[in-house]
């Protein structure tokens, strides 16, 4: 029991390291309510007027932004929002990757089009390697009636196409902020 907890903490640490190495920012909250507060302050720091959010992240929209919410259904709306708020279904520690089992183009738009992407991830959804989450991905893609797409997102959008110099935010978000809900964080501190 104790050993499993330790391994979990190791995975969270590794996820954080790798996500940051890929250029993502990681903020940790102990509870979903704390996460909502953290998200509110991130959006305020941005001075965001409108945010885009897909259905699955609805629970994390801070109260004061509920009125300033666009759905991702129309791509242009997502593009004009200052931030997108999304929920990641899994995290992959080895590569610092977020996994999203897409259910609509709207969801993909929210992940991709706004200049800042704020992604909520629960620490218990972090796995070690891509291979560990393959069963869930494969299952999601298997159903002929489902939407049948999966996105893996690691860090912000990047390019090195001019003189091999790294630049951030070319076509996708320039910032990826991961809000990590880690119940153990309070006890460990």
């Amino acid at each position, binding site marked *: 029991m104790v050993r499993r907890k330790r391994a979990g903490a190791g995975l969270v640490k590794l996820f954080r390291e790798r996500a940051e190495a890929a250029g993502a920012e990681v903020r940790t909250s102990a509870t979903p309510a704390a996460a909502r507060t953290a998200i509110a302050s991130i959006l305020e720091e941005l001075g965001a007027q409108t945010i885009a959010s897909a259905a699955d992240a609805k629970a994390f929209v801070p109260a004061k932004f509920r009125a300033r919410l666009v759905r991702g259904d129309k791509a242009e709306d997502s593009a004009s929002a200052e931030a997108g708020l999304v929920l990641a279904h899994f995290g992959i520690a080895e590569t610092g990757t977020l996994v999203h089992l897409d259910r609509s183009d709207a969801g993909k738009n929210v992940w991709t089009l706004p200049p800042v992407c704020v992604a909520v991830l629960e620490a218990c959804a972090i796995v070690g390697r891509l291979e560990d989450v393959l069963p869930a991905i494969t299952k999601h893609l*298997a159903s002929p009636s489902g939407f049948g797409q999966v996105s893996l997102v690691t860090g912000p959008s990047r390019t090195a196409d001019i003189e091999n110099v790294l630049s951030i935010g070319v076509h996708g978000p320039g910032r990826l902020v991961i809000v990590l809900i880690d119940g153990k964080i309070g006890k460990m501190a």
Partner: protein
Amino acid sequence: MSRSRIDPHLKSVLAEFSRNYLIKRRNALMGQNFEELRTLLAEMKDASLERNAELLDRFEAEACRRGNEVLRARDGDEANRLIADVLGRNGAAKVAKSKSMVGEETHLNDFLSRRGIEPRETDLGEWIVQLEAEAPTHMVMPAIHLTRADVARIFARRLGRPVPEEIPALVRIAREELRREIFTIPAGFIGANALVAENGAVILVTNEGNGRLVSTVPPVQVVLASIEKVVPTMADAALLLRLLPRNATGQVFTSYVSFIAGAGDHPRTVILLDNHRSEILADPVFRQVLRCIKCSACLNVCPAYKVLGGKEFAHVYMGGIGTLLTAWVHGLKESKAMAGLCLGCHRCEDYCAAKIKIADLVIALRERLNEQIGSPLWKRLAFEGVLARPPVHRAAFRAARVGRPLLSGKDGYLRRLPFPFRKYDRFRAVPAPAKKTFSKLFKKSGLGGGQAAGRGRITIFAGCLIEHFYPEIGMDAARVLKALGYGIDLAPAACCGFPSANGGFPRSARKSYEKLMEAIRASETVVTLCPTCTTMLGHAGPDLAGDEAAGLADKIISFAEFLERKEKKGLARVLSKRSEPNVLTYHESCHHKYYLKAAEATRSVLEAATGSKIKDMPETATCCGFAGSFSADHPEVSEAILAEKLDAIKETGAGTVALDCPGCLLQIRGGCRRQGLAVEVRHTAQLLAERLNKRNS
């Protein structure tokens, strides 16, 4: 004279790119077993290719079940027509494109433009080269040949206003321009990094996120994928994704990886392109070309690509792997010039994610080119008329020795060549043939014959360069082996066959090889002094001769490996350990390092004999640019590659360069001489022989 093929700016960009790539790749592979992973990938791809037709059918069925349309195209024209038809059917006059090398292969953009459909590239590099009406010069970095100033000029022309020469500003313009257009473009076009048979998924890997925009925002969706991209399961795809980003860009993972199985909210048409790949599949020698996952690691480490870039060393596909693909998808003739640009250094094979024997296959391609397209007369004469006939070969060198006083100065080098030939020797002094051959010196020396002092007999095969140019190396090797207690015999001074094999003349090569092997059939152990000859006698020759060579290869061993395996104690007995007076560095000759895997043996022997640590130069295992007839075919490229090698040597401050290959010795020593560098360039045998203790020297 024609313009220079080497663009100095591009050369320096590519050199830096390659240096950074190697560092990033090493970090990204930390904790991964690259050898094991690529063996698995090669096996997975081979197994997938074996059942390619079945997997394509499965992919089609699964993709269709999920609301997609799947079409097959026999060749590039048919693929282009199908794409144009889908776009036309949906009334799309413009299509947003994510990067697709297969789309480059079919010249899709030209085709669409002619049909009145405007293709809009969205990958930053692709867009830049599209605006400049150029072709990509690297599979992953399409615009690597352009500077930020070039890009600013290109963007300014497009926008009709001045643009700052700053990369962040240029990247912002690319974003704004695409965002302005993307919501009104009716169709999106993507390539595929892999196709998954079990669920009909298209896998798309991009860093910029343009692939996600293009595959999500426009209502009409088209995918173009070549047939070898299909793998059976998601687990196979995961293996591919474990290697692709790490080996391609030195990233642990790519920013965006999408699995697109369901059609989602839009109709999607997937076009599967054959374009002669079925013929590659049916070819037992070349089939492995289709294992390629287009990571372009082979380009990033190719010494010739680094100097020339993807305008010169390309048709559409670039470098060594590109040469092989070109021969089928664009025709044998188009691959001819490219096939001549492979140095045969085999470095790419160490980095290939799918263990493709790129350099070996380029040699096999040269055979087909010679058979089907023809070869220059001088090469046929040299390989078939001279090298394959030892008496003619010997007579030619005899003539050169007779003419020696006329040809060479007192220093042992040829006189400078007159104007039209200057490019062949301006960067490297060319040695005159030695006054006496190794065979002759050995015979006179009394080192041969006699009875072995207990350790048995060894046959030395020195190779042509030592026989005719550097007999002192042969003598030194003989002295070391004699001191260790071996009786010494010499193999006949004949060509091993490598130059012919490398040039694509397997019949001459086999003739030389078999003649030589017949002469040394009775020998128990044959110690070689040239890694290229060793490669021929131990590996390439037996492959050519098949069963008839059975067992012969086992007794061929390079000088350094023989000593390291059998005589470490013996060397300690006969040598007086003495450090080099100056810094010692070691050039890892290509065949020695990449084919024989013997560089570590030399290092161990040298460090034991000198008691000092070798100071490594940057990229010590990169070709010196000699590569046999390459330096005569492409003197300019040979010169540029040598210049980098000499810079690397200078950086170490070394006074002595050790190496194992007389070809590298010719090139590097000749280059040092032209540059006036006070650097001794010595074969391992020389460094050992000068340390023989009194009793033994």
